[in-house]
């Protein structure tokens, strides 16, 4: 409970830094002992031995030197403990990001985005305190008092005994109160995350709230939610502070007892004044590290709770069969892709998104996927991109189970133009080059020209270096799609996955996009989730999806005569066109 074994592993990897931080902390403790010694000697010399200033000049010089040394040791301790926590933060954040990537977009879609970001940013920040304040302090809280005792026992056995008896009470109290506080602290962390997510949500949904005349109600609700958080937190703190109270009381009362005890013995000449003063000056130093641990303890608990959430993410596994043997060989060019008896079920849903479907795509074939939204078309893409693994069935590439191919190698074969492309913070150039970061400017411009976005980009003040903000705020929907197509052109891969835009696009923009898609898919193996009739009519094969099944497949000419579903779809298309 004092040391979280999961977190300790991270410190163990950086043993030297950690030990240096403890070492300098310990040295600063020794400096404090020296300071107490010189001060008590100086006062004793003047007070009882009636010496004058010149007699004590050596002592004062030593006192000043020890003070400066202590300052330096503190800085060094601070430096190393922060170095430790900084390195661990880097490791945790990188590991988290890697974990999210290995889980993939479909598996993290159940998590709240804000909460994930909060865990990576603020959650890890909480762990900082665990390593910079708590863990080194934990060691120092044992080492410094022990060192002080080494000096005190020879001087005054009784005080040594008092110190020795009271000190272990502190961890005991911490243990007693800590368990309850830990539980509460976990709850509080959850409630903090939820509250942030809630506040964020309300701010984002303000338009909806206003339309329904609910925005003013939220004022009270925000107050209540925050108040609720306050009450929860105060409950944690009431206990956390109680531990601090007990700790504080222990040390102050011990000082009081020691002061009275040594005072009385001084009266009876059982003790020298200088020793008594030395003990009194040192008494706060004896308890200080343990008390500091008490304050760091709460922060340490926060770190442990934050770590629990992080650890939960680390331990999240993807369902589906694991195939251990992965062939890292370069994938040969695409001849045939088979989906064999593929099924898939999303966690939140009762029904299969895909139900035992099979189809094949030959080299340079253009395959159109059609059907109502939710019929399973996007699931095919997700499977193809290997964001998810089928719950049943196997996808074959040139006769080989694709799970045997390294996922990164596999994805280099594919270009993807999604329904809602993400525009990253950065320049337009960088956004296009996403699909091929090593591309030359010439290649990027060529791709932009092919996607019919070159002219538009040139019309921006900074051209290709124009910064596009979060979610591509400065670009229109059509422009975003064209950037996404430019990415696909630039990548120039064998296989294309295209989700035709359905969004609100200006007719001119839409026309450009469609002709770009046509150009792009020429002589490529492509899968298109189609929303346009001409796409369908040009397809080599049409797969008609309904409720997770392929109900009909074939070319337009044959389907129009034989396909019941297809004809119905086609008729709606035609009607909606007019």
């Amino acid at each position, binding site marked *: 409970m004092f040391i979280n074994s999961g977190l300790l592993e991270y410190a163990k990897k950086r043993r030297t830094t950690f030990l240096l931080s403890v070492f300098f902390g310990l040295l600063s403790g020794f400096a404090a002992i020296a300071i107490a010694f010189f001060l008590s000697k100086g006062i004793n010399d003047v007070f009882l031995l009636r010496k004058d200033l010149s007699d004590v000049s050596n002592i004062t010089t030593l006192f000043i030197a020890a003070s400066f040394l202590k300052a*330096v040791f503190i800085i060094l301790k601070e430096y190393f403990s922060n170095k430790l926590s900084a390195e661990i*933060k*880097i490791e945790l954040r990188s590991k988290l990001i890697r974990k999210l990537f290995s889980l993939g977009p479909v598996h993290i879609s159940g998590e709240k985005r804000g909460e994930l970001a909060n865990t990576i940013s603020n959650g890890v920040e909480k762990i900082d305190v665990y390593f910079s304040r708590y863990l080194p302090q934990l060691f120092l809280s044992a080492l410094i008092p022990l060192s002080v005792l080494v000096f005190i026992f020879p001087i005054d056995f009784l005080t040594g005994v008092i110190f020795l008896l009271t000190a272990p009470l502190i961890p005991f109290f911490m243990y007693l109160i800590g368990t309850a506080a830990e539980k509460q602290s976990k709850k509080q962390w959850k409630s903090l995350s939820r509250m942030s997510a809630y506040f964020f949500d309300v701010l984002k949904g303000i338009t909806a709230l206003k339309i329904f005349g609910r925005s003013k109600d939220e004022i009270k609700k925000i107050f209540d939610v925050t108040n609720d958080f306050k009450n929860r937190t105060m409950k944690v*703190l009431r206990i956390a502070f109680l531990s601090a109270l007990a700790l504080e009381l222990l040390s102050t009362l011990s000082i009081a007892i020691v002061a009275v005890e040594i005072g009385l013995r001084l009266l009876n000449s059982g003790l020298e004044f200088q020793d008594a003063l030395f003990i*009194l000056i040192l008494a706060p130093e004896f308890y200080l590290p343990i008390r500091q641990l008490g304050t760091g303890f709460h922060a340490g608990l926060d770190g442990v709770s934050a770590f629990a959430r992080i650890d939960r993410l680390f331990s999240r596994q993807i369902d589906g069969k694991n195939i251990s043997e992965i062939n890292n060989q370069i994938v040969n060019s695409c001849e045939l892709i088979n989906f064999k008896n593929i099924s898939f079920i999303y966690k939140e849903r009762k029904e299969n998104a895909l139900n035992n479907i099979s189809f094949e795509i030959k080299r340079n074939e253009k395959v159109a996927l059609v059907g*109502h939204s939710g019929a399973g078309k996007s699931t095919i893409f997700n499977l193809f991109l290997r964001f998810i693994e089928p719950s049943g069935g196997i996808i074959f590439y040139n006769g080989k189970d694709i799970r045997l191919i390294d996922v990164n190698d596999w994805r280099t074969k594919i270009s*993807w133009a999604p329904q809602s492309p993400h525009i990253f913070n950065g320049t337009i150039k960088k956004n296009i080059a996403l699909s091929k970061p090593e591309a030359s400017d010439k290649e990027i411009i060529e791709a932009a020209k092919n996607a019919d976005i070159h002219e538009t980009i040139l019309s921006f003040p900074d051209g290709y270096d124009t910064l596009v903000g979060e979610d591509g705020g400065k670009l229109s929907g059509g422009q975003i799609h064209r950037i996404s197509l430019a*990415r696909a052109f630039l990548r120039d891969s064998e296989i294309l996955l295209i989700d035709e835009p*359905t969004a609100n696009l*200006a007719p001119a923009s839409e026309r450009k996009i469609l002709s770009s898609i046509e150009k792009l898919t020429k002589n490529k193996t492509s899968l298109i989730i189609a929303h346009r009739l001409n796409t369908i009519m040009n397809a080599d094969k049409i797969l008609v999806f309904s409720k997770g099944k392929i109900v009909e497949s074939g070319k337009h000419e044959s389907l129009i005569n034989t396909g019941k579903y297809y004809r119905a779809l086609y008729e709606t298309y035609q009607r909606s066109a007019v």
Partner: protein
Amino acid sequence: MIARLFKILKLTKGYFWWMSFAALLGFFTVGSGVGLMMTSAYIIAKAALHVHISELQIAIVGVRFFGISRAVFRYFERYVSHEVTFRLLAEFRVWFFKAYERIAPAKTKDFTSGDLLTRVVSDIESLEHIFARVIHPPAVALAILVSLFLFLWKFGIVFSLIFLASFFVAGFIVPIFTYFMSKNLGEKIISLRTKLNELVVDGISGISELLAFNQAENFGADFGETQRSLAEAERKMSVIDGFNESAIELIMNLTVITIFIFAVPLVNANLLDGVLLSVLALGIMSAFEAVMPIPLSVQYVDKSVRAGNRLFEITEMQPAEDIPNDSATPDSFDLQTEDLTFSYDKIQNALNDISFLLPEKKKIAIVGASGSGKTTLANLLLAFWRTNKGNIVLGGKLYSRLSGDEIRKYFSVISQNVFLFNATIKENLLIAKTDAADEDILEALEQAELKEFVESLPKNLDTFAGEHGKQLSGGERKRMAIARAILKNSPILICDEATSDLDSITEKKILDTILRVVKNKSLIYITHRFADLDKFEEIYVLENGRIVERGDFKSLLQNRGKFFELFESQRQLVV
């Protein structure tokens, strides 16, 4: 900066007595510590002179008292100051939201989601610390300074002055010095943290693209680079922090030794009781506890002012709608605009002389390419913005006489982006009618043709719609909006590009549903698509903010004007 700080402090005005109370408790805490050490030193020094035990009785009681009172005061100080802190948090949140509610959504379009997240959540949380970090420590330190200054005067003004000078250096000069030393570094850390945060949000939002294009590693490298720069800056900062911490202790020790050096000749000359040597030394040592947290306060002043500035930037915006004090209510639901003209920036008109009439229960369509002013029109009808020129009249009452909330009572909206809260489906529907019973909700879902879907979900109505309603498809989200509109039961429905992000099959189905549920209501159907426009009694064609053509579907086609032109271009596109 000071002016800004005061502006922030003004927000805490209501908590003055709470804060003073906490500061008083803080003073007693440190004071008890000083008392404990002074009386302890007094006891041993006196005892060393072998006085009679009765002379120590009072001091012994004092030591015990201070030993207990310090801990108790500390407990209450912390408790009260945390209570104040959280009350302030609620206060700040509500303060911000109230202002935000006035200006949204008209003025908040430019804010990006991640920006808002950092801004509001973390800025308000940094303001939250303004009491504990910025106000409290200096208040306590000042109280200690004054009381010890007066106490030391009894033994010689020189001691008071030494104490004053060193307290000033430790509590003011050192913090200010380190503040300026770390200012740039602090700024760098903040901007790197923001960058890191943005990267995280960006990476999570764009995870699909990063994976599909094999860029996860590059992203990781970028991310690692930012982290390393941040760590580098933070490490430098830790040295400054260490300096801060140790400098105060160093000054404390130097003060003790200076007072000692001044006191020795006085003691030698019997002008000062030797007992006081240890009393003063230990007392001064414990008094410095009060300045320990001040360097942090100075850093927080800066942090708070920055956070405050960003928040004020939002809260001080003028709302786009003014709130009339007239509490008129419309007599009917006829909606009419007269020569409506509107400009966002006063340079270019987004709308010009728009006039149309929508009698109760009539259905009209407004078509036009994107950028033609359709959404602006919707925003004006919903009173998110107010017109510059011309009028909107609802049921015989001018919009300028109606409050925004009043106007919006009569409208439901289905827009392209249906916002779903991070809440259950039921809660998401209840915002339309808070007191709706489950039967009403199910009825609305049935009408919206979403009941079957909801019932197929594992937790039915209590299923979480998830952030951005990820689990719901575009069509399903639109049906959620329809269900909300049914529950709200307002006389006029505005569909603002409600179906244009859907495939044409889903689009048609959704439109059918909409037309069915608004049978007895007015409908304004804003679109750039021409499908099914024959179902509307009147169509207005919008181009560059003007109505260029109007009429029913047939006559517009026969006119062979703008409508025909747009229609043809779209038709060719699809077939």
